[in-house]
């Protein structure tokens, strides 16, 4: 019996066109643009300068602050410059630009495909190696993994939930990873379970990936404590709170974190990165990216060096399709649209999606007919139509009273709205506004 969450949710067509394409290595880029702000939290401090020679895996940005992550060179070559460079949305961040020369890896990095299954490190040692490897949550939120694996002393983790739901339409990178790197993911899971000191781990996978469920079920047979959970196909099944409810039947309280109910969630891609960082000394320098879209002739799953410009990925699939009007980094429900194609692949990029005008162009809005479809769809049980109205007239107090801060920005409301209202655009803005006010409010 497949499990699922209780409130809201939608069923968009899953469009997993690239699911049967094995992961291929993308050729090295000519220039790599490695941003210092690829994670949530404080940007890393660049520690190399113009003219320095760097090797693959060398630290070029040091974590600054508690919530931050190291950045490593993903290519070898000479640093061309360290300057603010626009991210896909044109917002600038400090970036180390490297002219690629050859492919020299740092000593001590195990590049072989051999599986290292024995774990002989203690929990804190594992966390330290993860922090050194610059591993961040690869599900899209890019929260530094080592911070998530060291819960505050007053909270105790009870289980680890691995997110293999991949509920966003089009994306297939996690699916391919589970098929091709299943054994490594299982070791990565064990590493994180040891780091957290928990005995129970779950891997939740949506039932539209039966091959991945079969494959991983076979692999975890000899490991007690890890269970594969089949999930219904429903968006946003991969949302942290939704996934926890589906797997362990507990709801994360409003404004709370999963650790409040003793759960830590990690993405399957993160599990692989953890395995590589701990067992192979290989920091996070590569990322599997799905290149997909209905009008693309050959959809692909590429293993890409972080910092490679999008234009090189696009060239590898034969250039921008004729009818593409929007390029989205990530899934169509929560991804970011890109405005220039020289932007680099970041740690959080899981896909490059090409959408045609017919698929993505927003249609003219009409009046709200109070059909309550947005309420039905909202996985957090909010009233998007009302929050939208309050947002338009900037009623901050009412927004807070109606819990706009619970919004998880999944996009279900806007997807279903028959009047084509920009519900989420407004709510995202209101939510950030209200959260900022709540944060600055003196606590009593």
């Amino acid at each position, binding site marked *: 019996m497949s499990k699922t969450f209780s409130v809201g949710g939608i069923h968009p067509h899953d469009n997993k066109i690239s699911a049967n394409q094995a992961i291929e290595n993308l050729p090295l880029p000519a220039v790599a643009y490695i941003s210092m702000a690829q994670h949530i939290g404080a940007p890393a401090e660049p520690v190399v300068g113009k003219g320095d020679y760097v090797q693959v895996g060398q630290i070029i940005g040091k974590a600054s602050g508690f919530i931050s992550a190291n950045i490593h060179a993903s290519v070898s070559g000479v640093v061309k410059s360290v300057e603010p460079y626009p991210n896909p949305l044109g917002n600038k961040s400090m970036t180390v630009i490297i002219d690629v020369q050859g492919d020299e890896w740092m000593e001590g990095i195990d590049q072989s495909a051999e599986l290292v299954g024995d774990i002989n490190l203690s929990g804190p040692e594992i966390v330290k190696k993860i922090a050194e490897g610059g591993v961040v949550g690869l599900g899209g939120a890019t929260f530094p993994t080592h911070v998530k694996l060291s819960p505050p002393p007053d909270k105790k983790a009870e289980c680890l939930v691995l997110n293999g739901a991949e509920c966003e339409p089009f994306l297939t990178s996690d699916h391919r990873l589970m098929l091709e790197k299943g054994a490594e993911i299982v070791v990565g899971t064990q590493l994180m379970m040891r780091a957290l000191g928990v005995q129970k781990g779950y891997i939740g996978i949506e039932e539209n990936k039966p091959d991945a469920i079969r494959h991983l079920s076979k692999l975890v047979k000899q490991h007690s404590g890890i269970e594969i959970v089949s999930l219904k196909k429903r968006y946003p099944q991969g949302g942290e709170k939704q996934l926890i409810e589906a797997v362990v039947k507990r709801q994360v309280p*409003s404004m709370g974190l999963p650790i409040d109910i003793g759960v830590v969630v990690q993405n399957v891609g993160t599990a692989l990165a953890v395995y590589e960082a701990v067992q192979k000394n290989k920091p996070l320098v590569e990322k599997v990216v799905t290149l997909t879209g209905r009008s693309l002739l050959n959809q692909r799953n590429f293993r890409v060096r972080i910092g490679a410009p999008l234009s090189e990925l696009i060239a590898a699939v034969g250039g921008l399709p004729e009818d593409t009007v929007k390029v989205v980094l990530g899934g169509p429900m929560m991804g970011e649209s890109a405005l220039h194609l020289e932007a680099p692949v970041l740690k959080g990029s899981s896909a490059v999606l090409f959408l045609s005008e017919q698929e993505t162009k927003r249609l003219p809005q009409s009046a709200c007919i109070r*059909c309550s479809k947005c309420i039905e769809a909202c996985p957090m049980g909010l009233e998007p*139509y009302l929050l939208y109205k309050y947002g338009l007239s900037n009623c901050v107090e009412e927004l807070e009273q109606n819990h706009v801060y619970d919004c998880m920005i999944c*996009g279900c409301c806007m997807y279903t709205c028959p009047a084509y209202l920009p519900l989420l655009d407004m709510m995202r803005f209101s939510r950030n506004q209200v959260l900022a006010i709540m944060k600055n409010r003196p606590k009593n």
Partner: protein
Amino acid sequence: MVKKLLVSQAPHLHGKENTRRIMLDVLIALIPAVLVSVYFMGLSALSVFAVSIATCVAVEYLIQRYLINGPSTISDMSALLTAVLLALNLPPTSPWWMVMIGAVVAIGIAKMTFGGLGNNLFNPALVGRVVLLISFPVLMTDWTVPPSIFRVGADAISGATPLGIIKEGLAGGLTMEQLQGAHGFSYQYLLWGKIGGSMGEANAFALLLGFAYLLYRKVIRLHIPLTIFVTVALFTGILWLINPQQNADPLFHLLTGGILLGAIFMATDYVTSPMSTKGMIIFGVGIGVITVLIRVYGAYPEGISFAILIMNAMVPLLNMYCKPKRFGEVIKNG
């Protein structure tokens, strides 16, 4: 040349639903009822539909064009839907001018003065019907039906609604058994027959067919109609058990009059019904109770139009107090 890409916030996809499609679905669901009424009641029914549609659409267009100077929303078909619903709520013998007045009231007063689609407090078609019912009580309860064009020479249908007959009969000292026997109100007749009444009440089966379609297309949710049915059945059931001679049984109540039309098509109107599940249930119960109160104790034989309008007025209140259950709300840390 570099392509100028589209940039926007997520989500980048949209579902297939839109307002027009929803309105179209409701219209499709009404097709059986419309066909049946035309079949039973002939050309006069057709002319009521024609006048109602023409007036509603024209009034909406003229108001938007000349009074508001705003964009026209005719193409979303909401005016068309109001027109068809209004016609279904009128007797087939309605004179053209009365239909026009109803249509002007429905669109002009009940809908446009509140700000057009999405802002009206009351169901426009019902406002139109009730205004006519109060202004022209004789014309609105004249159910003499001309013989159908399809069966020339057939008898004209009896001139009163089953509910009206029962109400008058009971007041005249007759018992239910005598009344049902005298007029042949079997359940088959009520489900299939051509019942006297407004055009939409002619055949219960046609309405149920539309109900099934709306549920299949997920245009409406089961909550409102179901709670109305259950409430009406329970309430009349209790009365019937107390005194079967003076009260009609629940099934009779459900199949006669406008309960089906009202519960399926009028009470479920998005704009004038509550947003949350809890609100919908209270809304349905309220309509059921008020309907039965009016039917059994009130002056009118039928009360669902009034019941829906009264509960429409409660909707803002229900929306305010009946919030959907939030995720993570139950186990809030104390």
